[in-house]
């Protein structure tokens, strides 16, 4: 266990959009939405990276299934999102991005306070997708936001569980996997942990008072989350809102299991324990600072674009088929 304190940094989500998403979006826009620009509920997925290479770290995926996601048998975690598909590039440009993300953050903050998040923890990983589709040219302009509530924590150290592995620790992954089978997928990304005699107890967020009701606010509590990051010292984006959730409960010391093992049978764990100390309790009344528009590879805040003309345009497809 290292002994130091520093402001934590989180590995942001990096959005990957399958061509199938744009294909379904085109269909829906033509046949269903038409000019209607109501926000639509969609779902993206994220999970533990299959390899430790940075190419697979921090990824969140949106595909054509995301309009009508079948949760059954899904191995990944879900991230609920809102799609705002606009009709013109002017509208896209005119959207007030700053107030939009503030609004989304405010909604999340309310949902934390009124208990909605305890029933649907996946909201902690929610996103917003601003989109303009030029269907004549099969071009799509889009911008993801992964709103995060800022809370004031210090990172106080990390450890891998290789030192002093106990019976309970070695069975932790199995216990989590079994827990996951019992809960709804909306609940599966974030969990509470309490050490029992022989094994770990695992709970959903709405079991908070069962788990931590008898703890003092400055006692160290233990939680865990499915971590899309594989960087040794850097947890993934979803932890940020989870820490805000914990701060909202008034607790100031937390040990977090960043779950990074794909299989309960993994012979060598990649998971990391990280400790955090809350520096300043959160105000119940004011919405915390919010950020989260996705940046491009150059770290600039700009939208992304995709040109699917050669994948989607029926005429060009016919041309290419030999």
């Amino acid at each position, binding site marked *: 266990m290292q002994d130091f304190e520093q402001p934590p940094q989180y590995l942001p989500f990096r959005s990957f959009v399958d061509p199938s998403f744009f294909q379904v979006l085109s269909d829906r826009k033509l046949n269903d939405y038409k000019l209607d620009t109501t926000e639509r509920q969609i779902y993206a997925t994220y999970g533990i990276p*299959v390899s430790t290479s940075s190419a697979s770290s921090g990824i969140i995926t949106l595909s054509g299934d995301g309009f009508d996601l079948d949760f059954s048998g899904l191995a990944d975690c879900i991230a609920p999102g809102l799609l705002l598909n606009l009709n013109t590039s002017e509208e896209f440009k005119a959207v007030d991005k700053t107030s939009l993300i503030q609004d989304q953050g405010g909604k999340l903050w309310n949902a934390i306070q009124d208990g909605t998040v305890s029933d649907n923890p996946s909201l902690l990983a929610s996103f917003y997708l601003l989109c303009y589709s*030029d269907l004549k040219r099969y071009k799509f302009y889009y911008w993801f936001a992964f709103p995060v509530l800022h809370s004031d924590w210090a990172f106080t150290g990390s450890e891998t569980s290789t030192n002093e592995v106990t019976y309970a620790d070695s069975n932790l992954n199995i216990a989590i996997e079994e827990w996951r089978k019992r809960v709804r997928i909306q609940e599966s990304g974030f969990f509470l942990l309490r050490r029992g005699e022989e094994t770990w107890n695992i709970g959903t967020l709405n079991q908070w008072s069962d788990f931590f009701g008898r703890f003092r606010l400055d006692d160290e509590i233990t939680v865990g989350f499915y971590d899309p990051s594989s*960087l040794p010292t850097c947890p993934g984006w979803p932890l940020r809102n989870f820490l805000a959730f914990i701060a909202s409960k008034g607790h100031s010391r937390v040990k977090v299991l960043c779950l990074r093992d794909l299989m309960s049978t993994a012979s060598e764990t990649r998971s990391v324990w990280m400790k955090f100390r809350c520096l300043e309790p959160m105000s119940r009344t004011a919405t915390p600072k919010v*950020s989260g528009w996705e*940046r491009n*590879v150059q770290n600039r*805040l700009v939208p992304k674009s995709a040109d*699917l003309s050669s*994948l989607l345009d029926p005429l060009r497809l016919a041309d290419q*088929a030999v």
Partner: protein
Amino acid sequence: MLRLQSTLSSWREYLSPVSHVSTFKQTGEITPEEFVLAGDYLVYKFPTWSWSSAPASKMRDFLPPDKQFLVTKHVASHVRAQSTSAEYNGGSTAGDAEAEDEDGWTLSYGSGQGSKGTTSQSTTRPSSAPADDDDDADSIFDIDEMEDEMEDAGYLVRDSAAASADGNTTLPDRSYNLYITYSTSYRVPKMYLSGFNASGSPLSPQEMFEDIVSEYKDKTVTIETAPFLENMTMISIHPCRHASVMKMLLSRAEARQRRLRAAQHTSGKSAAADDLMAGIQGLGLDSEEWEDLAAEQKVEEGGADDSDEEAVRVDQYLVIFLKFISSVTPGIEHDNTMAAL
């Protein structure tokens, strides 16, 4: 390893009574049952690959519902095939002709004729130039930066000098999702690729073609709607020549494996899987090894088939298939993820 071996032997048991006659060594083709066996082995050995189910409308009844196709996602690609092929061309010699099969298909690099013209053509093609008729939409990108947000200290910036100092945070230019399905018409695995740029947006087929060595790009890469997913268009490597290539690769892997086994003979038995990996290594891009093997093949023909312990097993087929694919798509680093395991 014990567990692996027992699993393998139970697979072998399962395989023997299947009425479909296994012809993979003679023809390079496999049956759907063998495809499943080989997929199980691949997933077991390399957990970056996994089996996937298909939507109900795309389900193929000769494969188990939960094993419709194999997939691995977000495989890094740092360099384009065009930039690597020069290097491979440089490394090859006239002796390579020996290593070709009768159709000249097996060598992906350096087989000379026909490749150079197309290479230069594709390297000059701009990779993703925006169309010029795009003025209105381009204005989307003129967005005033939000100063407040830029100050977010909790946002880990990848690629920054500090971050790359502790390694592992740099991002590749591109990444690929790879899919392997079974082709009934050719009785071989078929590879589909779906590529993304560094921003996570889909690549156009033309951009993806840059990651295929020119011989294949010109002959066998097509744009197709995936038969195992809804609404997915991607590029595929047409399997018409897979069987003959696989047949040759299998016999080489086998010869290499025999040679290693002979060398190890005195030191007693070693795990079959290790042998395979060593054998596969020799298969890779090392053409000198391949030439050596021609001689050994004769030895092998004499005493073949009496010892199934030494033979390349059909469940190892996809591991060898991927070696072949990595020679077609040298810039897509699915081999690295394997080496890491």
